[in-house]
């Protein structure tokens, strides 16, 4: 009898507290607005097109490109090895394993910066790590990697080296094919590969 009163006087007030507080007041590992603002100001989430091109050419297994545009746009053109997570599906359960992980480097991209950055901000706010944004999006990708413009010859050597690198990756990643982006491309002809006939050993014998 007395025991029941003691237990009741402990558990019932606790129950009242639990009933009164809202659910999920604390979500662990969430960023505060201040922390997020700091990251946004620093812009650490941006990865340049050159870095991505380099990783693609080297077939870096840690890179995971994520296209946040619509499925129709994704089917029209996408970067090699990328998956399509339309911005509206970002929070669906299906993709949580992709976005919230500590192994791969996720790089969001869209046509410009905006949608990809929105995806990054939402996922960062949820506390997800390893998510980045392709600087300038596909438009800048097309401009710099697919159809690089030759720098003026007066520029410094590193500019020219950059151009050479871009031209090389452009060939490796099938550049020049993005006519849709506007510039009259196709000025990067693929090097013709001369096929040499292999010398065969003389067959036959006795």
């Amino acid at each position, binding site marked *: 009898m007395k025991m*029941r009163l003691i*237990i*009741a006087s402990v*558990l*019932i007030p606790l*129950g009242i507290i639990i009933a009164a*507080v809202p*659910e*999920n007041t604390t979500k*662990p590992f969430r960023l505060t607005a201040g922390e997020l603002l700091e990251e946004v100001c620093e812009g650490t989430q941006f990865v340049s097109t050159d870095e991505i091109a380099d990783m693609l050419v080297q077939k870096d297994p840690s890179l995971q490109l994520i296209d946040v545009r619509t499925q129709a746009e994704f089917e029209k053109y996408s970067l090699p090895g990328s998956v399509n997570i339309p911005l509206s599906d970002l929070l669906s359960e299906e993709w949580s394993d992709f976005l919230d992980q500590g192994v791969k480097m996720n790089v969001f991209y869209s046509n410009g910066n905006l949608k990809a950055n929105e995806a990054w901000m939402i996922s960062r706010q949820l506390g997800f790590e390893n998510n980045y944004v392709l600087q300038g999006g596909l438009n800048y990708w097309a401009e710099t990697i697919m159809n690089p413009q030759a720098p003026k010859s007066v520029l410094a050597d590193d500019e020219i080296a950059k151009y050479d690198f871009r031209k090389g990756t452009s060939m490796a990643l099938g550049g020049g094919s993005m006519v849709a982006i506007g510039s009259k491309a196709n000025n990067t002809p693929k090097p013709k590969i001369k096929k040499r006939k292999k010398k065969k050993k003389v067959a036959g014998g006795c």
Partner: protein
Amino acid sequence: MAPLIVNEIISPDTNLLIALLIGIGFGFVLESSGFSSSRKLAGMFYGYDTTVLKVFFTAAITAMVGMLFFSLFGWMDLSYIYVNPTYLTSAMVGGTVMGVGFIVGGFCPGTAFCALSIGKLDALAFVGGLVLGIIIFTEGYPLWEDMYKADFMGTPTMNELLDIPRGVFALGMILVAFAMFWVGEWAEKKFPREEY
């Protein structure tokens, strides 16, 4: 932080070890509080001894309040907690079978092993019946597979089905539990029986 396995704070093997220790403690407490007596357990259904109700319901509401507070403090992510899937038909049929077995045999599976460990022969018979039941169920599985899998409801919780907040349901549960304790103690006075 918690659940510890999901967040890789402990490994599944360590978890088994902890489960073993908790299990030993559980069995010890069960035995020492008299749960190895089938009369005490069956008393629940006749009204002369409602210890079973009081102990298990106190455990349930304590765990419930604890987990809700852990979630409130951000120590535990309740979305990772395993919820047993509900198959309504088999829950009702199985509950009936279990309940009848409980009244007839005077044990539930856990307490049967508890009593067996101190050498009670009726518990040995009960465990024998338990094994027999398991064999019949598994061997005849194709016969009742349809019924077993009928009315699958996913993993709903009561507060979701009733569409009320989790905390409010918890408070209601606590109040219901204490009301049942009160009724139980009233029944103990109403149907007294000698302690064996």
